[in-house]
């Protein structure tokens, strides 16, 4: 714990926190000191020397000097000012001030603001261009060496925050500048386009291309006019004061044309929030904010740059009604009337349970709430589900069995501070990129240990301290064996188990068969390795377990999730900071879709539909009778359509015809429906089967809330108006309900949230006022607004407040006939999302990753004569897919990897079966085997290798390596010039 000490600042005694740097203290106490390279989210970079102050008689960098008891700090004396002046002069030597015609002149330019604050009128060393061209090669950002002040913020962010380790500064060069990999063009490097560098750049050196020529009033002028203009500005310069005043004025004027709106990302479940800068419908840039609770300054390529789909020509603009072999555009009135008439007719002739409703993890909490209310209250059925059925329901099941809340135990900061992170069946660096950066960085800088269990050598595996590769579907075996070994050797947490957990003996008995020998045989991991893992887990003070689809999408997905939670209970890794279970939610609102009741057995807040008291509460609030029968989940819905029992479906935001398993079977079901309504932003594969298609508005065009993987509820604000005649889902559902006579009067999503919060105790204190801007709440939320960043600190939500060890057994994965000799692992890619409806619309992303591809091992390539670009057909008992190969050692032996990002011939779910998790019906997507035929032996590689990051050449180092700068012959510390008369060489 840091304590307060007394120091002197400019002669006054003040309290300061031990452990802070002098700069941090000065910033907190409002003393203004220049600090160009310092960024609160990056810490001290130590390159710019502008924060020099005097401490105990020495001129030092305030950012690099810890607060010590009795220290005397002077920020005012002339020597300090002179040293800072020299530092700033060196910066201006590297950066031309043409603020008024600079796209970065938006009030936040550190150089502009520092020149102004320091009242600098002239520079001693004139600006000098660097002998390197502007690098425009990357589709989304460019680097201008002439404007680069070599502060190294971008390098720090790339090396130590994002940890892709692409950027460095070549301090050895006569003219240092930022370089990519070993000095290649940006677009040809290992850069993953996460955008960190352009986000943290203090000036216009590293800038989003979408800003260029658009941000200012005069920045869009022809290059031939711009250059003389810059010269003119410089020539009339009477001192920077007047020039900066004009540019300040211009910067304020920009507020009139640039809108900055906070939103929450619509891709994965990490829940990044950021400001979107727009002019009309045009997106200037995505600007992450340090105060964003889940991500701070971080983004991945999709959140930073993947927004073109919003303005895509393919967006649906009007309701569509099926007529013969084509859709006819119609007005909303006609569409609503038709839907109301058809659905009412089906309900009257076949009963309520002939209807079904599917909600989406892409839509908001409020929209999930309204969808289940529509199904339950207006149509009287519990046949309502959402796509978490395809991914995370088994994890939720495993947690309900053992600890009682179906969500991450803590926050991303807990994962960051854990002593050990255990990643099972999760390609975190690609599926949850920003969350993965916290693990990569903690491991790189703070000694966090990382164990990865996966079939495939992905980035996390590559970085891990221990990487185990169990046979597919056998995670439960090694988890149980490790747990048994821990108990057998007395390494378990006795007092935690005594005080807070039930069922120890029964559980330990159930582990009998999971001996080390048995595990080694079934998983093919050696006993030694298993023991090592057991010791690491048992001996770490805090362990976070992260898992994803590699665990859940199996026949025993719920059981394996349970086994993970059991292991965490046995080792006491619950209810304390830096510990717990973290099923990483895959979509922006997959957590919220279930939280707000789009489930066949649960009301919002996970209360049972079979519970009479709960049901009565909803019946009274909604004023309609409600069904007490558990409804169908979406897997069962497909079966019931085939059986002829389910006649109508209303589905929103879900391309079920691509993302469900065994899609041929699903398509046949769609064809059998009497009436099918699909609400989407595109004419998706699923929508092609619809009778009526309703044009919805995506996240940027509406308000609402999303709940991320940390159970964190965050508001999104409307960035732009709905396109054409499209409408937000909440509005469509409300208007349809009213067409059916429901009499709902929601004018704003807040009214929906407040109704839900009034009914579901889990969300009692959730309120839009408490969620303003970047504020957020992590459920459970008490009525007074107190939220719960860390679960189970005092109790588990069971009647006796104790957790439960829950015995589980191994379900062996689906066996295939010998002819299906290749296992087809499948999952995500960093740069595309799911079937790709959204990300393939981003030209820049698609230029670097144009399509999906099949990863084959070097061994298999050798054996079958495969090479990059070979076109193959994979055939499983359920269907076939056509795709081109990439040979890579990320996979081994007969193991293949097919990213799920295709909705045509390469779509993985043409191969998957209807086999599912025995407890939740989540499809066993990962249990697929196929045989391979070669269709065309040679072809162009499906990845443009020259410009694709997976072929880059990262250059890991810690931070910007400022020591190398200090060693340069031409570097003299400004303090030494002022005090010791050292000569300046710069």
């Amino acid at each position: 714990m840091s304590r307060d000490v007394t120091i002197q600042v400019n002669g006054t005694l003040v309290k300061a926190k031990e452990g802070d740097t002098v700069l941090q203290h000065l910033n907190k106490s409002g003393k203004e000191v220049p600090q160009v390279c310092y960024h609160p989210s990056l810490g001290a970079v130590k390159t710019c020397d502008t924060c020099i102050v005097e401490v105990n008689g020495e001129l030092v960098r305030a950012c690099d000097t810890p607060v010590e008891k009795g220290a005397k700090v002077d920020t005012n004396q002339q020597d300090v000012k002179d040293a800072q002046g020299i530092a700033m002069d060196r910066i201006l030597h590297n950066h031309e001030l043409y603020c008024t015609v600079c796209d970065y002149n938006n009030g936040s330019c550190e150089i502009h603001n520092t020149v102004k604050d320091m009242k600098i009128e002239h520079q001693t060393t004139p600006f000098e261009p660097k002998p390197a061209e502007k690098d425009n090669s990357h589709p989304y950002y460019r680097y201008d060496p002439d404007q680069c002040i070599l502060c190294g913020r971008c390098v720090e962010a790339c090396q130590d925050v994002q940890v892709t380790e692409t950027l460095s500064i070549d301090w050895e060069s006569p003219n240092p500048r930022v370089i990519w990999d070993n000095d290649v063009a940006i677009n040809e490097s290992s850069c993953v386009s996460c955008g960190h560098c352009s986000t943290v750049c203090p000036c216009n050196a590293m800038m989003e291309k979408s800003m260029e020529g658009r941000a200012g009033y005069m920045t869009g002028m022809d290059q031939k006019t711009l250059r003389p203009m810059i010269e003119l500005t410089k020539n009339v310069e009477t001192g920077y004061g007047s020039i900066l005043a004009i540019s300040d004025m211009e910067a304020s004027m920009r507020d009139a044309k640039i809108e900055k709106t906070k939103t929450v990302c619509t891709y994965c479940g990490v829940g990044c929030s950021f400001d979107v800068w727009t002019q009309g419908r045009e997106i200037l840039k995505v600007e992450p904010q340090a105060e964003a609770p889940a991500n701070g300054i971080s983004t991945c390529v999709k959140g930073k740059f993947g927004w073109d789909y919003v303005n895509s020509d393919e967006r649906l603009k009007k309701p569509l009604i099926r007529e013969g072999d084509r859709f006819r555009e119609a007005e909303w009135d006609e569409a609503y009337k038709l839907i109301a008439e058809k659905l009412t007719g089906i309900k009257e002739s076949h009963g309520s349970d002939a209807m079904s409703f599917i909600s989406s993890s892409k839509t908001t909490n409020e929209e999930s709430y309204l969808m289940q209310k529509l199904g339950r209250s207006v149509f009287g059925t519990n046949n309502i589900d959402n796509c978490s059925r395809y991914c995370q329901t088994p994890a939720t099941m495993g947690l309900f069995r053992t600890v009682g809340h179906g969500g991450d135990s803590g926050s991303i900061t807990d994962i960051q501070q854990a002593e050990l992170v255990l990643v099972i069946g999760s390609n975190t660096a690609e599926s949850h990129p920003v969350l993965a950066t916290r693990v990569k960085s903690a491991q790189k800088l703070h000694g966090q240990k990382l164990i990865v269990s996966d079939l495939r050598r992905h980035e996390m595996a590559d970085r891990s301290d221990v990487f185990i590769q169990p046979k597919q579907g056998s995670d439960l075996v090694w988890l149980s064996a490790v747990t048994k070994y821990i108990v057998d050797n007395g390494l378990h947490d006795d007092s935690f188990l005594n005080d807070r957990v039930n069922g120890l003996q029964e559980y330990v008995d159930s582990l009998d068969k999971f001996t080390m020998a048995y595990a080694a045989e079934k998983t093919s991991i050696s006993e030694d390795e298993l023991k090592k893992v057991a010791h690491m887990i048992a001996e770490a003070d805090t362990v976070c377990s992260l898992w994803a689809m590699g665990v859940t999408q199996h026949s025993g997905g719920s059981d394996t999730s349970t086994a993970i939670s059991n292991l965490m209970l046995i080792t006491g890794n619950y209810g304390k900071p830096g510990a717990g279970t973290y099923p990483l939610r895959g979509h922006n609102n997959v957590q919220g879709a279930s939280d707000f009741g789009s489930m066949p057995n649960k009301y919002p807040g996970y209360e049972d539909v079979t519970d009479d008291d709960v049901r009565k509460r909803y019946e009274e609030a909604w004023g309609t009778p409600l069904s007490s029968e558990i409804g169908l989940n979406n897997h069962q819905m497909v079966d019931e359509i085939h059986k002829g029992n389910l006649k109508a479906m209303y589905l929103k935001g879900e391309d079920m015809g691509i993302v469900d398993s065994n899609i041929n079977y699903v398509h046949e079901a769609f064809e059998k429906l009497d009436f099918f309504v699909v609400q989407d932003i595109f004419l998706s594969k699923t929508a092609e089967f619809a009778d009526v298609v309703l044009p919805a508005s995506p996240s940027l065009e509406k308000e609402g809330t999303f709940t991320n993987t940390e159970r964190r509820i965050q508001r999104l604000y409307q960035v732009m108006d709905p396109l054409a005649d499209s409408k937000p889902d909440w509005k469509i559902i409300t208007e349809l309900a009213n067409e059916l006579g429901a009499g709902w009067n929601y004018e704003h999503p807040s009214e929906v949230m407040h109704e839900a919060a009034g009914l579901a105790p889990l969300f009692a204190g959730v309120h839009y006022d408490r969620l303003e801007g970047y504020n957020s709440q992590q459920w459970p939320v008490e009525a007074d607004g107190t939220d719960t960043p860390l679960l189970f600190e005092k109790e588990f939500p069971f009647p006796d407040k104790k957790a439960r060890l829950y015995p589980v057994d191994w379900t062996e994965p689906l066996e295939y006939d010998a002819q299906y000799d290749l296992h087809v692992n499948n999952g995500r890619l960093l740069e595309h999302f799911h079937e790709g409806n959204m990300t393939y619309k981003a030209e820049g992303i698609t230029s670097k990753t144009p399509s999906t591809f099949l990863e084959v091992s070097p061994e298999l390539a050798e054996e079958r004569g495969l090479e990059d670009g070979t076109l193959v057909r994979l055939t499983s008992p359920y269907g076939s897919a056509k795709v081109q190969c990439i040979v890579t050692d990320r996979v081994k032996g007969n193991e293949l990897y097919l990213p799920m990002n295709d909705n045509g011939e390469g779509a993985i779910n043409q191969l998957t079966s209807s086999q599912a998790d025995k407890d939740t019906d989540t499809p066993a997507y990962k249990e697929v085997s196929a045989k391979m035929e070669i269709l065309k032996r040679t072809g162009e590689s499906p990845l443009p290798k020259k410009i694709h990051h997976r072929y880059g050449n990262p250059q890991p180092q810690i931070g910007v390596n400022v020591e190398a700068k200090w060693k340069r012959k031409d570097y003299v510390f400004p303090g030494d010039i002022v005090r010791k008369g050292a000569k300046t060489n710069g």
Partner: protein
Amino acid sequence: MAKPIRDIEPIPISKEQERENAINEILDKLADNQEAVHSTLDLIASLQKSGILHILTGLFSEGDKVLDVIVQEAAKEENTNAIRNLLLLGGTLGTINVKELEPLLLKINHGVARVAEDPDPDEKTGYVDLVKKLKDPQINRSLTVLFRFLEGMGEKTEQEERN
């Protein structure tokens, strides 16, 4: 049996319909902003009358070219100097302390007023008169003020220069 389809038949919107919708939208806006519309029209009418509208039209329709010409022109040395002088002058004006200047200005005003009474006096001031006049408290005060002014003018100002 609902087979998958992708063809979309757009709503036939006739040209007249589209035009009518657009006109209605505009009429609504006009009606909502009556006053602003009237004032704007008055302004445009005067701009038209004075010919300024023509000039502006030319300026904006050929914006890029015009800007280029302006910048090229402004970049000429003498013009750059002019702009620079303007900025300098502006800056210097800002540094004049009017509060301090006021008494001096009042005094000058009085002097001017006195001169105005008889701008071309016949009487001549001789050597002796001059010495005598030094005893006159009004003249003595004037001279003291003048000397102080000259002293101030002689001080170094290099460190305050903006150029």
